[in-house]
């Protein structure tokens, strides 16, 4: 490659790096700003994609502009107006865009783009959007993940996920779902939907702790990023702090959850040297701050349970009695059979296996548990402690049949072998 060729390659690389940096920092902000004014998320995405393509082309010739974000917005806005004209509809939307132009010019004079991602998040998690689509919608609009990446994380065919995303976005536009942070009186319920969607994204990442499937790697990171965003935008909401703490606690053990050969390692047997102590410290701080706000909630309680597990770092042992009572509080709040199962396990490990079996019997009829692997694994654990090895083996056998994760299945099979020995 000659000097001229090298120079061109360098300019291209600089333009590309600048465009990528702008994409990482500004994508969600730009979508939120555009979509909140036109109510057209898909249109905003198209316009912004065009703007990024134009940036790659022009920045290598003209150099990277002083304010890349403002440059991208100006181009994207022009594209949006073109879209409107082509469709020959939506006079009101065109008015919005004209207003937006004035707004941008006014804003440009003093500070940067207003951050409206919170409004966009509430739109994505609106009750009129199917609950299962809220997390995918957020991952796409705020973070710019493509449909294929989201599809593989949620174990849905890419074309299906693509269609569902398109439908959800046109629903936002056609049904008139607003872009705004709800009023105080409905905020709690609506914020809950936002947090739930973020946690759903985290849980999808969580099922793949080693990131063995490369495309799924990092969805946990993306969810934590969204959690941080909510906390930065709503620092006075204890449940937002609680959710971020919960995800950080869980993530601090990511590398301890699998043995070097990929086998499942239960929490009690994890090597605490593999836990990320900086992450745990951050989670503790968040949880402490949330607790100081005097409004207990689901995520704070779950984070407190994780905090009690993390205390093994200092105490050398796990305080199962404390964990069992936290689960009792969580169960009283959520009435979840899944919480009841965890509560029973904690009680058994705290030395109260009789009580644990009664708890499991109480929820045994719940249809949600019939095919829930952890329920049968918990029964096996409790029955073993009570000395009923035959019944424990039967429960363990059932758990194996219900488990889709091979690593977890191997762990349960090893357990069954000891029960039958």
């Amino acid at each position, binding site marked *: 490659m000659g000097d001229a060729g090298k120079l061109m390659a360098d300019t291209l690389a600089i333009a590309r790096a600048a465009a990528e940096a702008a994409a990482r920092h500004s994508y969600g902000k730009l979508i939120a700003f555009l979509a909140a004014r036109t109510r057209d998320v898909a249109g905003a995405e198209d316009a912004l994609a065009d703007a990024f393509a134009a940036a790659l082309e022009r920045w290598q010739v003209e150099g990277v502009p002083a304010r890349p974000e403002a440059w991208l917005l100006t181009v994207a806005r022009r594209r949006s107006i073109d879209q409107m004209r082509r469709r020959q*509809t939506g*006079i009101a939307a065109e008015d919005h865009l004209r207003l937006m132009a004035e707004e941008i010019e006014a804003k440009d004079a003093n500070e940067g783009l207003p951050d409206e991602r919170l409004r966009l998040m509430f739109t994505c998690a609106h009750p009129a959007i199917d609950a299962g689509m809220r997390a995918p919608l957020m991952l796409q609009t705020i973070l710019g993940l493509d449909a294929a990446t989201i599809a593989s994380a949620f174990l849905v065919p890419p074309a299906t996920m693509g269609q569902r995303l398109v439908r959800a976005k046109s629903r936002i536009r056609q049904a008139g779902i607003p872009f705004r942070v709800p009023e105080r009186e409905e905020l709690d319920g609506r914020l809950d939907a936002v947090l739930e969607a973020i946690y759903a994204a985290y849980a999808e990442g969580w099922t793949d702790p080693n990131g063995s499937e490369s495309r799924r790697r990092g969805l946990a990171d993306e969810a934590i990023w969204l959690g941080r965003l909510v906390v930065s935008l709503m620092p006075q909401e204890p449940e937002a702090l609680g959710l971020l703490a919960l995800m950080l606690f869980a993530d601090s053990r990511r590398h301890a959850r699998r043995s070097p050969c990929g086998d499942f390692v239960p929490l009690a047997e994890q090597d605490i040297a593999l836990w990320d102590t900086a992450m745990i410290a951050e989670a503790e701080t968040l949880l402490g701050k949330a607790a100081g706000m005097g409004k207990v909630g689901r995520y704070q309680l779950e984070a407190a349970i994780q905090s009690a597990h993390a205390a093994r770092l200092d105490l050398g042992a796990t305080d199962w009695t404390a964990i069992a009572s936290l689960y009792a509080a969580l169960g009283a709040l959520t009435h979840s059979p899944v919480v009841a199962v965890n509560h029973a396990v904690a009680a058994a490990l705290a030395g109260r296996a009789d009580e644990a079996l009664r708890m499991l019997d109480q929820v045994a009829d719940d249809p949600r548990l019939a095919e829930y692997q952890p329920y049968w694994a918990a029964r096996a654990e409790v029955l073993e402690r009570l000395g009923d090895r035959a019944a424990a083996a039967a429960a363990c056998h059932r758990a194996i049949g219900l488990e889709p994760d091979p690593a977890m299945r191997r762990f349960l099979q090893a357990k069954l072998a000891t029960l039958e020995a």
Partner: protein
Amino acid sequence: MRYMLLIYANEAAVQGNPDKVKDVSPAYIAYTNAMRDAGILLGGEPLQPTAYATTVRSRSGKTEVLEGPYAETREQLAGYYMIEAPDLDAAIGWAARCPGAENGTIEVRPLWEMRAS
């Protein structure tokens, strides 16, 4: 945006119970007045029961006329309001106040705006 609030109710439950009609009428009057006062009401009427419905369709040039409603369902379309609301949240807010939401169901549907520029 313009929205239709479609009120679905179990006709049988209402017909067998004239007192019930008397109970809800004042509530509907108050509700309609509240929407009018808020300046959002574009129109709205109650409908006669589906027993008086006639279904019409054209098939291969022939008009078929059938007695009865389009579909037999547990709840039937009993009336509608058309409102002007800034967004879905506002429309949902009005739907929730409809007396018919208590025992029946309100479907909120945006109108297909046919404006050309």
